[in-house]
Structures are given as structure tokens and as C-alpha cells.
């Protein structure tokens, strides 16, 4: 991992722990966006996956529908471990601990598992939309996040905040018309 990526991930995970303790799910959601810049620039799997997991945690927290009593206790322990591995740039251990967290999220119980699966899937698509807004093509973000362009387009069309530069619609249209001839 790049040094900057290591320190950003570690910093975000420690802040997530603080927000869990303070019951601040909106802050956790915001923290998932902090990693989007690095995900867009370095396009490293660590920033991408951490952003997805953190966003998913914010959604679970928001719904406040966790069956296991010690769910958050376990989550905080894994996040602490992950932050430590990130700052030490131990990619292997970091990946393992994030995977441990993802598996724990999915295995809570069957009903919850489906909801979690859905949350993780939604998180992936949401982050694809965010990275696309930062100037990375649709095809590239779909590849980076491991989703199809179909899912990415579906989300981006309905959710993305896209700022558009001034376009000359008449010029584009007449250009197209002039190049196509009737049979």
C-alpha cells in the first residue's frame, strides 16, 4: 500500500471506532467518503474495500437492527486490529482482518445475512457512483468495484450528482444527423 493510503485507512478506521462509541452513524457514512479520493487516484483494492465496509457499517448502524449483543464489540476489535495492520503496511494481515469483518457481517443470522448481503452490494454500487463522479469512467469503476456496468448505470442515473459543463446540443445533434443518410 502507498504510505498515504496506509495512514488514511488507519485514521479513518480509528475515527469509525470513535463514532461507533458515540453512536454517530452519519459520521461513519461520511468517513467512508474520505477514502474515495484515494480509491479514485490509487485505485487500490484496500481503499475501495475499506470504503465499502465502512459504508455498510453506517447503514447497519442506522437501521439499528443487530441481533448479536456483542456485534459492535467484535466489530470494534477487528477495526482496531485493521487500523494497526494498515499503519504498519501489513497488507496480508490487513486483508485478512477486513475479510474477517466482512464474513462476520454476513454470518450474523440468516435473515440478517440477506439484509447484510444486500447492504454490502448496495455499498459497492454506491461507491462506484462516487468514484465515477471523481472523473473515472463507468467501465473502469465497474471493474474496480467488481460490479457490472448495468448495475453502475442503474445507480448513477438515479443517484449521482453530476455537474455538467455547458453543451451545445444543437451542434452535437446536427453533427450526428449530417453523418447519417437515409436509405
Amino acid at each position, binding site marked *: 500500500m*502507498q504510505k*498515504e493510503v496506509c495512514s488514511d485507512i488507519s485514521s479513518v478506521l480509528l475515527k469509525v471506532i470513535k463514532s461507533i462509541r458515540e453512536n454517530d452513524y452519519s459520521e461513519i457514512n461520511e468517513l467512508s467518503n474520505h477514502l474515495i*479520493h484515494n480509491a*479514485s*487516484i*490509487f*485505485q487500490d483494492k484496500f481503499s475501495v474495500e475499506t470504503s465499502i465496509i465502512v459504508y455498510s457499517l453506517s447503514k447497519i448502524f442506522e437501521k439499528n437492527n443487530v441481533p448479536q449483543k456483542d456485534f459492535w464489540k467484535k466489530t470494534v476489535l477487528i477495526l482496531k486490529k485493521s487500523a494497526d495492520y494498515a499503519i504498519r503496511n501489513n497488507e496480508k494481515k490487513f486483508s485478512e482482518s477486513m475479510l474477517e469483518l466482512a464474513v462476520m457481517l454476513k454470518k450474523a443470522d440468516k435473515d440478517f445475512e440477506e439484509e447484510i448481503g444486500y447492504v454490502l452490494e448496495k455499498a459497492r454500487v454506491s461507491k462506484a457512483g462516487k468514484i*465515477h*463522479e*471523481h*472523473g*473515472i*469512467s*463507468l*467501465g*473502469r469503476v*465497474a*471493474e474496480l468495484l467488481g460490479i*457490472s*456496468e*448495468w*448495475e*453502475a*448505470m*442503474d445507480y*448513477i*442515473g*438515479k443517484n449521482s450528482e*453530476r*455537474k*455538467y*459543463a455547458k*453543451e451545445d*446540443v*444543437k451542434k*452535437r*445533434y446536427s*453533427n*450526428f*444527423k449530417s*453523418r*447519417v*443518410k*437515409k*436509405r
Partner: protein
Amino acid sequence: MSEIIAVDSSSIISLAGNCLLCVFEKFKKEFDVRFLIGERVLGESITRAVESRKFRLEGMRVKKLVDSGIIEIVKNQEVRDLTAKIMEHSNKCYRAKNENLKIIHWGEAEMLAISKVYHASTVLIDERITRMLVEKPEELRKLQEERLHTPVEMSNEEVRAFKNLISNASIARSTELCAMGFESGFFKEFEAGIEKNVLVIEGILWSLKNHGCAISGKEIKSYVKMLN
């Protein structure tokens, strides 16, 4: 000789999501055009969709268009080689934090390669980053800089190298295709009972936008004014 239109998966997806794939067939009947896609676009537009449950029906509809020859697949080494070169240079056009930004995907590069090799007059793509790279690379740099909150450098040398590899084809979106379809009467079936015919194309353009086509509300307003 037919006009060649190289098609990206983003346009196919926008149209499929709105049950407007018929526009390809109607266009081909009315105008002397060939719609070409490459292996990567085929993979995304059909294979990937059919493998999923959510988009399987749309994928099967796209497959029908390919099977019937409305959309043609091109597979040749010249396109593959040019795609690799386009990828190489396009992904060196911008740098941030000492890192080259990988901004486009193989499918988008392949579409540009097809347009060059087959002398396409038009490239059909709904996705805006590739379009900005081709038409307004400096504006793309500014967008990235603004969103990434970090300086983004653009290599004029790499942009020139990239532009030398691609064709002079104009860029159109599914919106331009449908606007022309509207003027050619493709959507007459929707006009019965509608107060103003132009409301039909307005509805179509907004639906395309909601399915991911990069068109702004302002542009749609301009279209409505123009086609009224």
C-alpha cells in the same frame, strides 16, 4: 457504403433499460448504417447481463439484436492491438499524487479502436468521462482536480498520442439516436392522446438520463425546444 457507428455498452444499457432497443432495428431500416461492437462490449452487454438475474431479460434482448445482425460483433487483431495502445496512452494522460490516473476501461478503448479501424463516422457512448477525454481533456482535468481536492496534471504529450490513435468520429449518445428517431416517426405509437408530440421525446430523454445517460436537464430542455 454504409455509415459505421461504433457502439459502447453504456448506450446499449441505457436503451435496454428503457425497452428502447427497437431503435437500433428501426434506425438500421431507415438509415444506411451498421452498428459495430467489440468483444468486450459483447461481454458486458450480453454475457454479464445474462449471468445476472436482475438484468438477464435485457441481456437476452440485446443478444437477439446481435443474433439477428442488427448489431454486429467485430473481432480482429488490429482492433485488439490498437485497443492496447489506446489504453496505454489514455491512462497516462492525467497524474495526481505522482500516480497515473487509470480513467478508462478496455471496453471503452476497444470502441474507440473499432471506430478508427472501421472508419466510423460516429461513436455512440452514453458514459461521459470517455467523451470528455476525447472532446475536452482539459475540462476533464479540471473536474478531477475539483472532485479529488488535489492538483491533477495533464500530459499534453500523452493526450496528443491518444488523439493520434483515435478517429475523428463524432460522439453521439442514445439521446441523439432517439431524437433522430423521434423526428423520423419511430415513436408515433406513443403520440396518440398526448397533448403535444414533443412530450414523448421529452419523456424518452428523461428516462435515458435516469438510466445513466450523461445528459443534463438543461440539454433536455434544449432538445424539447429544438424538436417542438
